[in-house]
């Protein structure tokens, strides 16, 4: 199953998003990388690295980020890891994580999971 990582400036937000995603998919490997080690807001290179390592497997990993440093720091982690089957998804974090978790636990490939996450951009709420 494709691993999923949620990167946010806020530890609560990242944890909350993966809690919601687990509701639709209890079994997919998903990890949060939120906030800094000292509990303050920000994005941590080390937390992102650890989260990726904790879920990454032969099916690959999809990463969702909130904004700014979350995106740039994730890019740096991926450059350093240099794995082939990892992608970052430019999508809304909550809707994207739920879509991706459902796709992953449904046995979809990384590419399909990525497309599912991106399709969250066009989900109409009403």
């Amino acid at each position, binding site marked *: 199953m494709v691993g999923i990582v949620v990167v946010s400036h806020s530890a609560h937000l990242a944890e909350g998003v993966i809690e919601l995603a687990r509701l639709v998919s209890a079994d997919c490997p998903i990890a949060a990388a939120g906030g800094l080690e000292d509990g303050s807001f920000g994005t941590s290179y080390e937390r992102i690295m650890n989260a990726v390592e904790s879920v990454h497997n032969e099916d690959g990993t999809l990463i969702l980020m909130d904004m700014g440093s979350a995106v740039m720091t994730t*890019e*740096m982690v991926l450059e350093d890891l240099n794995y082939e089957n990892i992608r970052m998804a430019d999508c809304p974090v909550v809707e994207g994580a739920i879509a991706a978790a459902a796709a992953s636990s449904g046995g979809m490939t990384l590419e399909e999971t990525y497309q599912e996450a991106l399709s969250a951009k066009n989900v109409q709420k009403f």
Partner: protein
Amino acid sequence: MDAKKITEILHALSSKIDKEKEFLTELDNVIGDGDHGINMARGFKAVDAKIDTLETEDIGEILRTAGMTLVSTVGGASGPLYGTAFMKAGMTMSKKTQISLSDFLACLNAAVEGVKMRGKSVQGEKTMLDAMIPALEAMNKAIEQGLTSADVLKCGTEAARQGVEYTKTIIATKGRASYLGERSIGHQDPGATSFTNMLEAVYDYITA
């Protein structure tokens, strides 16, 4: 200038940022998320500790280490941006034990390219690039005119300060400040300001 002096300059950058952290945070409170000064001070404090443990004459290694430390400790956008800047600068100095003024400008050029790449940004978007690029251009011009190191750095810091002033006149289109749109006009960019602070610290060091 050798590795020992580069280490001293990095310590000087750190104390300058520490001195300016409240002002930088204040600037960021207005148009960003209010963490620039605190984040930068935390990152440079970690750089302070890290570079003192290095036993190397390789200036490239010192700069790369400073960059990697900023990436892992700053926590905000300035971490990957300044981190990339220092790492790219370090790459131009790989295995070199002496740094000349033209090496320094090559470092700054690599830093500018690194920030553009990492931030997917160009000049005129109310970012640190609006201080970095004019400073680099002014120093390149000054070096062509055969000015002394101190005068070249002086031209650079003046151009950077003007760059900061320019950021007051434009709308932010990158970073958190871009959410403010036109309301970002009238406020100077914290990243352009912290870059200028660093260049001032280099100038103060070489003229002390």
